[in-house]
């Protein structure tokens, strides 16, 4: 009954002198000379005193409370509170030794030491909180709400209702973001390194702005009069981020532009391709990748409009039929100067290739990669395209050497770049033909083959009338025999002799060299090629992955011989344990090696 009095005291107060029905408890207390009224009055007085105190304190602190709390608050001055204070102090000391405390402290490192008390107080307040399920008034808005495990603590240690909790966390999340130390993070560093960027100094303002524009591409309405080079770079960045969609595509369309380069069109649809053609009447260079929804109708539009397309680069237009390809070549083929096609598996057969060879009479650049339906017959056709200067082939069918020999004989003298990838059955005769017929090459790629011999490769480069090559990629040309890892006694693939011959022939001009997986190149050969007096002034990119002989010493020799080196790729070179990398060189692929750049030991790469 006494409880009822207390709970409803606000209602009862004006009626204090009116005696209502007496309860059994009141009777009992009265009989023991205890006055319930006396107790109640004492309590009321005490509560009102406490309230006044609280109001004074609050007005002093300028903290607003909508209503004073009904529960009594401990007064700091009274003697009992001293014990409470001491107990609290003890509790705080205890907390400071607890695990939770040290964990939190670790989270807020970098702040002054007097934070200890703040953290301890925080934990203390949390412990005093009501348990989930109880009702509590929100500290900020004063609303009554049910406490849950997710209720957040307010700025003064009280609890917040769901709405205020949300708002409060939003504010709270922003705070730690500021704590990030300057410089870029480890992940970003590694990402840059794999991209071959080991920049010294700041990146250019241009690059910085382009990236920023790409970040905010959604807010850009139009680019205005951006030069084509910048547009191309923006297209590259957006493609890499997979951000080319119908909205961003509009930014690249303009009647004044003659070219469009987008390296990831996976989010575009057939209509978007039509839009490109319709809105760019002057288009001459069309370079789009991942164009699966590209259909016959798009080419048909191109044919109907008699568009002056000179460069056509398309990756995976698999819905286009053979009939359409043929019509395209017949109608527009003579204008084409460069044709690059990748990943065609359902159409584009030998007959289509023949039509292409017959009608594309002005073609200077031809690249056919991962085309599944063409083989020997297509190669024979290509040998008749005498206008070609750049040829790049990577077919999926097995082919013979003879058609390749024919190509080299017919086209060789004019060719400036030649790339023959994964012609597994091509043999030394091909190399001999290249030696005899090609005199203008600056780029040569012969990869994934286990038939060429070291001797034939060396003979290719020795006494070759061709100028020094700038780009050489002879990766994965080696003997593959699990039972005989050392290879046959007469070396197969690019081994020591051929490597020395290559570097003697092209060392002065070579910019890019990839001999990945040519694992029979010996230590002695590498030592000779990268000897002290040798210099490869132009070499910027060197891939020696899985050339097992490369070790710390050879790596230092390489840095010494190649002053322009920007990227050294050494996946699987496990003998590299501890290297000092010169400024501006990106070394990619070391495993648990100590890499020191400019005297600073770098963090683990892989």
């Amino acid at each position, binding site marked *: 009954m006494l409880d009822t009095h207390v709970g409803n005291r606000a209602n009862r107060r004006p009626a204090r002198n009116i005696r209502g029905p007496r309860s059994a408890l009141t009777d009992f207390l009265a009989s023991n000379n205890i006055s319930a009224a006396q107790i109640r009055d004492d309590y009321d007085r005490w509560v009102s005193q406490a309230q006044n105190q609280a109001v004074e304190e609050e007005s002093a602190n300028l903290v607003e409370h909508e209503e004073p709390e009904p529960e009594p608050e401990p007064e700091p001055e009274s003697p009992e509170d001293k014990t409470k204070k001491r107990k609290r102090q003890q509790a705080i000391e205890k907390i400071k030794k607890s695990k939770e405390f040290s964990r939190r402290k670790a989270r807020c490192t970098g702040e002054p030491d007097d934070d200890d008390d703040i953290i301890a107080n925080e934990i203390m307040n949390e412990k005093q909180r009501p348990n989930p399920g109880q009702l509590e008034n929100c500290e900020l808005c004063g609303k009554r709400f049910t406490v849950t495990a997710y209720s957040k603590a307010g700025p003064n240690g009280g609890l917040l209702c769901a709405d205020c909790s949300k708002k409060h966390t939003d504010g709270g999340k922003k705070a730690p973001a500021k704590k990030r130390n300057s410089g870029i993070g480890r992940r970003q560093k590694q990402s840059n390194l794999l991209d071959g960027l080991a920049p010294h*100094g700041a990146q250019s*303002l*241009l690059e910085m702005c382009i990236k920023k524009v790409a970040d905010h591409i959604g807010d850009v309405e139009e680019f205005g009069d951006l030069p084509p080079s910048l547009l191309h770079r923006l297209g590259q960045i957006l493609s890499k981020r997979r951000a080319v969609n119908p909205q961003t595509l509009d930014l690249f369309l303009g009647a004044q532009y003659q070219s469009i380069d987008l390296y990831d069109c996976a989010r575009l649809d057939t209509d978007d391709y039509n839009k490109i053609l319709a809105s760019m009447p002057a288009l001459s260079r069309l370079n789009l990748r991942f164009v699966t929804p590209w259909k016959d109708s798009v080419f048909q539009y191109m044919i109907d409009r008699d568009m002056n397309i000179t460069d056509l680069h398309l990756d995976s237009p698999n819905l286009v039929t053979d009939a359409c390809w043929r019509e395209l070549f017949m109608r527009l083929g003579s204008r084409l100067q460069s044709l690059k096609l990748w990943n065609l598996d359902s159409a584009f057969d030998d007959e289509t290739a023949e039509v292409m060879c017959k009608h594309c009479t002005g073609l200077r650049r031809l690249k056919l990669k991962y085309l599944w339906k063409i083989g020997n017959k297509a190669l024979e056709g290509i040998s008749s395209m005498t206008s070609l200067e750049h040829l790049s082939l990577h077919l999926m069918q097995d082919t013979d050497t003879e058609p390749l020999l024919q190509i080299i004989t017919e086209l060789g003298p004019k060719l400036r770049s030649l790339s023959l990838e994964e012609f597994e059955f091509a043999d030394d005769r091909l190399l001999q033909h290249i030696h005899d017929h090609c005199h203008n090459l600056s780029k040569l790629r012969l990869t994934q083959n286990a038939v060429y011999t070291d001797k034939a490769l060396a003979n290719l480069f020795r006494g070759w009338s061709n100028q020094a090559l700038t780009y050489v990629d002879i990766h994965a040309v080696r003997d593959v025999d699990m039972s005989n890892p050392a290879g046959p006694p007469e070396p197969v693939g690019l081994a020591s002799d051929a490597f020395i011959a290559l570097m003697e022939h092209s060392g002065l001009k070579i910019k890019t060299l990839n001999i990945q997986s040519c694992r029979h190149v010996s230590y002695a050969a590498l030592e000779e090629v990268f000897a002290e007096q040798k210099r490869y002034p132009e070499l910027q990119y060197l891939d020696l992955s899985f050339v097992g002989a490369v070790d710390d010493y050879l790596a230092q020799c390489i840095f010494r011989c190649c002053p322009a080196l920007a990227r050294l790729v050494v996946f699987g070179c496990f003998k590299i344990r501890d290297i000092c990398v010169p400024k501006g060189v990106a070394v990619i692929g070391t495993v648990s090696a100590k890499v020191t750049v400019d005297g600073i030991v770098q963090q683990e790469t892989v």
Partner: protein
Amino acid sequence: MAQSTQSEYVTLVSCDGFEFIIPRSAACISGTIRRMLDPSSNFSEAVTGRCVLNDMTCVIDREWIRTTRSGVLVTRFTDVGSFAFFSAVVLEKVCEYFCYNEKHKDQANVPDMDVPAELCLELLMAADYLDT
């Protein structure tokens, strides 16, 4: 005669008349400005010490003006509209970049400079023009 009289600082003037005085070495990060200031180029900037690019004015160190007073003005740039992006706001950011670049010249893993989103397209054009 050039090297001895070149002062350490150059003044860049925006189209709306704000002047920014920054170290010569920092300004020369820009290929365009470097070529402008190159005494051997014999451009008007190098001859008179002052170049007027329609909207962008580039006043080069006064020391230099005093020593060479031949007064030949070479107009190199004929397209009028394309330099309107050199407002004070943009040029300020460009100068900030020059100093930022100078400061981080020999450091690895430099943090990106903050470029406000609303400025980045104009700044992009400016950067393209300035060859930085």
